[in-house]
């Protein structure tokens, strides 16, 4: 604290050579309408949005692909492997997503557990190893395990994406101590994913030094998704600025804001 009064210099967020101006990544799931989704995407200022791969319903051609609803030239597409319970399923989903020709980025999710949707560390490592060899840009979704994060970045993944709390729970940054350790040891961007419920959560993640946040449910399930998208984007930016500025230490006692001497007296 005494040692330095110099704020950090901001460096743009770069993932595998691609610079992103917004540090908020947005999911496209769970919106009530496509109009609400598009309004939220626009209000968020996000440049990277996640999508999922699912089978066509060949008996109902009226169900359009999501990509007809959004301006996919405006956003970088990050397909995920949601639904994959094993490394093999995640690898196959990633390959199919890439074959569509839109993106070779992949959010790796290997999730055997349907209740808490927690990722499998071993399956995630296996999937990432294969996908890295096949040339994907790999963004793994992981439990907030610092050693696992280190193994992944050492293997070559292009980010690590530790969870803050269970997907869609809005519980906030439950794992903040572990995330702080991951950030301390990070050699690739750390994206806090899952569980962010409000701007204060996003700001806290960024104050810890995270490089970006990925949010979906908190926006989609707000009464006003566009307004909430804007709010969370501001929270992300506020937290990042605070990280750069350097926050005050937490003190056990009070410390007066007004001078202690020279107080006026009463007769």
């Amino acid at each position, binding site marked *: 604290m005494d040692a330095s009064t110099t704020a950090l210099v901001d460096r743009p967020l770069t993932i595998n050579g691609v610079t992103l101006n917004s540090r908020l990544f947005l*999911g*496209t*799931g*769970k*919106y009530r309408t496509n109009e609400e*989704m598009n309004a939220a995407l626009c209000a968020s200022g996000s440049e990277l949005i*996640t*999508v*999922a*791969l*699912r*089978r*066509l*319903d*060949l*008996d109902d*051609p009226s169900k359009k*692909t*999501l*990509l*007809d609803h959004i301006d996919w030239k405006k956003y970088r*597409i990050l*397909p*995920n492997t*949601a639904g994959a319970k094993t490394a093999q399923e995640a690898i196959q989903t990633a*390959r*199919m*997503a890439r*074959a*569509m*020709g*839109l993106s070779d980025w992949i959010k790796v999710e290997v999730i055997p557990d349907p209740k808490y949707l927690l990722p499998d560390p071993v399956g995630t490592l296996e999937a990432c190893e294969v996908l890295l060899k096949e040339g994907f840009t790999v963004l793994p979704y992981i439990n907030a395990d610092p050693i696992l994060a280190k193994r992944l970045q050492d293997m070559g993944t292009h980010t690590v994406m530790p969870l803050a709390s269970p*997907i*869609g729970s809005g519980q906030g940054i439950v794992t903040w101590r572990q995330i702080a350790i991951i950030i301390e040891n990070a050699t690739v961007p750390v994206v806090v994913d899952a569980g962010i419920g409000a701007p204060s959560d996003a700001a806290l993640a960024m104050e810890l030094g995270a490089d970006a946040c*990925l949010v*979906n*449910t908190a926006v*989609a399930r707000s009464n006003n998704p566009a307004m909430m998208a804007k709010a969370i984007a501001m929270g992300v930016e506020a937290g990042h600025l605070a990280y750069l500025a350097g926050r005050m230490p937490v003190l056990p006692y009070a410390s007066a804001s007004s001078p202690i001497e020279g107080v006026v007296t009463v007769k």
Partner: protein
Amino acid sequence: MTITVNDKQYTTEETSIEGFLRERGFEPRLIVVEVNGEIIRREQWDTVTLTEGDVLQMAHMVAGG
């Protein structure tokens, strides 16, 4: 000819991926196709001839987080 797509059987006379998709009412874009376990990139669809008993998987992008 009967083929299996996404675990359901369809009878069709279309032997091209694009033809089958159009027959079902789909624009042949932003869709990924797997034929007998092999992913077929869009630019290679024309090289594939569907035959009796083929097993296909067809997928697209949906909203997700």
